[in-house]
């Protein structure tokens, strides 16, 4: 509880900082004044139209990826789980890259649509292929690997066949970017999260029971097949929502859950801290992406790992020394 509050406070601080800096700096006091609706017209434009929606998109995308990763790690009982487990990331990459390579001058809406369609199709294929009188976690993971690699291979093939400017555009998309996000991006993610996050919280209990093993869970009254299907659907929809808005910032899904667990000393899946860590990671990474090499701007996906990986490594070494968890 305390951990979550600290994380939330940090998120607000970093968010405001990110809004205040840029080519046209806005002092923090003006940022706060604008956020409560008392800004000047110029600060209104810079904060309200340009920077706030970008920060909000980043926070929500990070939260969605984080929770999705936590769900799949818990489901697969594997610390390396992520939406990759069900082939989603590979499918969405193939969908987006096909649109970029095949359709001349495809817009960002078409690319997002391609990504979501590809991801959902891949997840469906994996789930159907893994179904044999119910879904066993181990089989789901292995089928996911097989399908995922086949899809990734086709994506790689397209990239070697594409002309170099398409290849570069695809590389930017594949890294994940928050460039030029507006309220049009905030609304769909926001509405999606309002539905999916409470659902994930509610499913958290079943997930914690499932972590005890199938037999125990069944004995405690969890309906294995139906529960797994619901969990997979929620996890995939969260990943789809996030991927459509910012591309596959895949690293957040992998790293936010273990960081969150270590921060709040939770033995199993924790939804709220994971969402906050994911959001914080993405928003801070975007701040770095915008300002570190300014005026040059790198995609946010480059920095989520630059920021998150050393932190996780530090947590791991500290944990090893103190023998915690």
């Amino acid at each position, binding site marked *: 509880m305390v951990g979550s509050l600290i994380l939330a406070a940090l998120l607000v601080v970093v968010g405001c900082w990110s809004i205040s800096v840029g080519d046209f700096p806005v002092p923090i006091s003006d940022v706060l004044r604008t956020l409560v609706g008392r800004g000047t017209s110029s600060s209104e434009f810079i904060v309200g139209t340009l920077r706030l929606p970008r920060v909000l998109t980043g926070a929500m995308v990070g939260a969605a990826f984080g929770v999705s990763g936590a769900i799949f790690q818990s489901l697969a009982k594997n*610390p*390396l789980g992520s939406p990759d487990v069900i082939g989603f990331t590979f499918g969405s990459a193939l969908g987006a890259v096909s649109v970029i390579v095949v359709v001349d001058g495809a817009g960002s809406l078409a690319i997002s649509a391609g990504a979501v369609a590809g991801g959902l199709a891949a997840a469906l294929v994996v789930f159907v292929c893994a179904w044999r009188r119910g879904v066993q976690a181990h089989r789901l993971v*292995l089928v996911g*690997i*097989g399908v*995922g690699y086949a899809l990734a291979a086709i994506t790689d093939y397209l990239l070697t066949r594409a002309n170099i400017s398409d290849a570069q555009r695809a*590389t930017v998309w594949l890294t994940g970017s928050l460039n030029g996000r507006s309220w049009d991006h905030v609304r769909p993610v926001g509405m999606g999260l309002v539905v999916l996050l409470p659902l994930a919280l509610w499913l958290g209990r079943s997930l914690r029971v499932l972590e005890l093993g199938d037999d125990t869970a069944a004995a405690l009254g969890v309906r294995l097949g139906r529960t797994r299907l619901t969990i997979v659907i929620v996890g995939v929809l969260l990943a789809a929502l996030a991927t459509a808005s910012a591309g596959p910032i895949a690293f957040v899904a992998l790293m936010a859950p273990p960081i969150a667990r270590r921060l709040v000393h939770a033995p199993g899946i924790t939804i709220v801290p994971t969402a906050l860590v994911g959001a914080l990671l993405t928003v801070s990474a975007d701040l770095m992406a915008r300002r570190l090499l300014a005026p040059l701007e790198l995609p946010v996906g*480059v920095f989520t790992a*630059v920021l998150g990986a050393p932190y996780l490594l530090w947590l791991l070494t500290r944990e090893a020394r103190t023998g915690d968890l």
Partner: protein
Amino acid sequence: MRSVRAIGLAIVAMVLVVVVIASLAIGTKSIPFGTVVRALTDFDGSTEHMVVRELRLPRTIVGLLVGSALGVAGALMQAVTRNPLADPGLLGVSAGASFAVVLAIFVLGIGSLSAYVWFALVGAAVTSVAVFALGSIGRGGANPVRLALAGAALSALLGSLTSSIILLDQQTLDQFRFWVVGSLAGRDMTILGQVTPFLVVGLVVATALSRPLNALALGEDAARALGTRVGLTRLLTVVAVTLLAGGATAACGPIAFIGLTVPHLARLVCGPDQRWLIPFSAMLGPVVLLSSDIVGRVIARPAEVQVGIMTAALGGPIFVLLVRRVRMASL
């Protein structure tokens, strides 16, 4: 059970021989089988003989060695982390090699395959040492979960640095995108000579590790009680994986699929015993790699599809079918 495994191993060996012959005989250019045989026994310097001797023969040997190396490295990695999702890349080998190659292209402007080899080897070695060190700090030495997380984190970090370079410099991206898919094309005797020592030493160490790894599969305490030196076993496993996967990546670029799936296929036939798993993986690896390469040579004539793409595109669906059909043997 023992005789079933022995027969299985003999069958896989025969399939491997057939695949090797096919790899010498089939290619973008059609050459009659008699000519192929004569090129090897009675070389006359004609173009067709040159194609077989200078292109297909080294390519086949590289495929053979690299396939074995990747299969065995995968088996070792899954055993030491006790994680079915582990592949040799988890030690950061391919991320480290890729980053070193990108640096070579971007900073030094290097563009030849045999020069990439040294950079890739150094990158792979440095990264896996770092991952092992990070994974084994503190009490109890290397712990499987910590090793896996450290590897994933460091790989992601290097991957980010790699992508920031290729995003900033289009020319580097243009060269790198062909290396990173993984290919056997253009791998000649020079490259073979560069990586063979690493791969052979790696295979020898791997064979020696099968007993201690079997003991480790029972859990650390049981392994200690059986007289296994747990820390040393883990260290040597990481050394072997680095030599095998590092050498393979240096020769052909990152080919992820084989290290991950071949051990699972091998386990279907021989179960989790490392003494059988390692030879099975060593033979199934090149079967998968070379047969994918053969298909890649003929599927898009006169162009070729890189083997890194073909292994996954062909192997993925087959892997899924097998997983569905058979009850998977766990680790």
